């Protein structure tokens, strides 16, 4: 299966799951967004931050409590 087909399947399946309709223009926008974001999302998911857990309720006005 080609990547383009998979993208179309992902978007269509997602829309159907939520019961959301989309016209052709919206589908084209979603396809372009998917093409732009999805490879980077997959790379992000593969990123290994080790044992790092997200800061609980970080105070973003300050440096992290644990350096």
């Amino acid at each position, binding site marked *: 299966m080609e990547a383009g087909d998979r993208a179309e399947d*992902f*978007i269509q399946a*997602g*829309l159907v799951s*939520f*019961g*959301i*309709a*989309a*016209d052709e*223009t*919206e*589908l*084209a*926008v*979603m396809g372009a*967004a*998917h093409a*732009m*974001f999805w490879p*980077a*999302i997959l*790379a*992000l*998911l593969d*990123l290994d*931050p080790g044992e*790092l*857990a*997200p*800061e609980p309720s*970080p*105070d*973003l*006005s*300050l*440096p*992290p409590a*644990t*350096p």
Partner: protein
Amino acid sequence: MSTHPLDLPLRAQAAAIAAGEVDAGEMLTAALKRIERRNPAVNAVVETFPERSREMLAAAPEGPLRGVPVVIKDEWPLPWRAQRFGAAELIAATDPTPGESGPYRALRDAGAVILGVGNMHELGSGSTGNVSFYGPARNPWDPERCPGGSSSGPAAAVSARLVAGAVGADGVGSIRYPAAYCGLTGLKPTFGRSPMAGHHMDGISTMIVSGPLCADAADCRLLASALFGEELAAGTAGGVRIGIVRDSVTDDVTPTVRDACEEAIRALVAETGGELVEVELPDLEPAALAAVLIANTEGLAGLSPSRLASLDPELSPIARGLLKYRMLLPAAATVKAHQVRTLMRRRLAAVFNGVDLLAWPTVPAVAPPLQAPLVELPSGTLTADQANVRGGALANLTGTPAVSLPVGLDGGLPVALHLQARWGRDELLLDAAEALERANGRRWVEALPPLAREAEPTEAG
């Protein structure tokens, strides 16, 4: 350069009014006339309300901005007007209503006069400003070019010298990109330091801050001081240590942008007796995506399938498609984005033990055409949004302050340098920006786009 009061820096306008050299009422009238005359070319201001402005002036306290006209982005409610967010419909957890937003109160208490509302990229979801319910804002340097976004109108308004200062908002670079495209100085404050009350994402967003856009750093200092409710002391940035990162954010940029930014950094080092330090800061691209994911998912509270089924047909197809795509973002990616946030906050904290500032181009190329916001970079053709987020997102992701300042022109369009500092060191960013202005003889902060060089008709005062 014209000596019309509207062409003075914000601080000089305030001083002239305070000294009785300029009548604030006449200034307000002149500014409204200038908007009538110049705004059609740039669509920066989407609404004025002369009676409300005159009421603000009549009630203005003896603050540091008494009588000075300013513009505020369409992201903030006013007592007489709800924000529209540049869109036919604001998708939020609560419907927008008029009210006293934090920036409104800060401006009012400083004595400023809100003259109008600045255009913005629809729903704040773009770095170009070419999509808006009100029609695109246009870049005063070239009306066929993007002004940057999402604070497109505030930037275009200051660049066209409709006003000398404007308040924007920055969720993923949205003050700094338009500042860069329009040749201004724009400050993204440390998270939590500037007012957010009344914003429809207040208490939800961990990314968005309010902040100033002005011609230069001293004006940004004045307006930021009003917003913060505390005076931002001026220093010299002496001996500042500037960190340089070798990454796509510095390398995948046009040659002119790279050269102008490198020259500016060298000049800043020389002016301050500073030091250049090469630093390691890996994973900037995943960090940018993490910022986009967090910003997008924080806005999901207002979304539901039923809401998406009844979107205002006047929302752009881009907005409708992107809102629907947001619903499909995998939760695992957002969790990973928060891990990356922690990772980058720790890395930045470590980096800022060794340097005072990080420097790189704000945007990798000058403002692209409104009709096709693409940029040609060494790596190929990218959308401006894809390219811009590399440099702008880290400050929002980590909560750190950053500033964009003009450092050159390329084909008649502004080039900008981005400086980022440790949490709470907003003042140092402005000190460094002022040092660079001294170093280059204020050449770039005083450069004017063609629209702003037009002579003022005598009847406008």
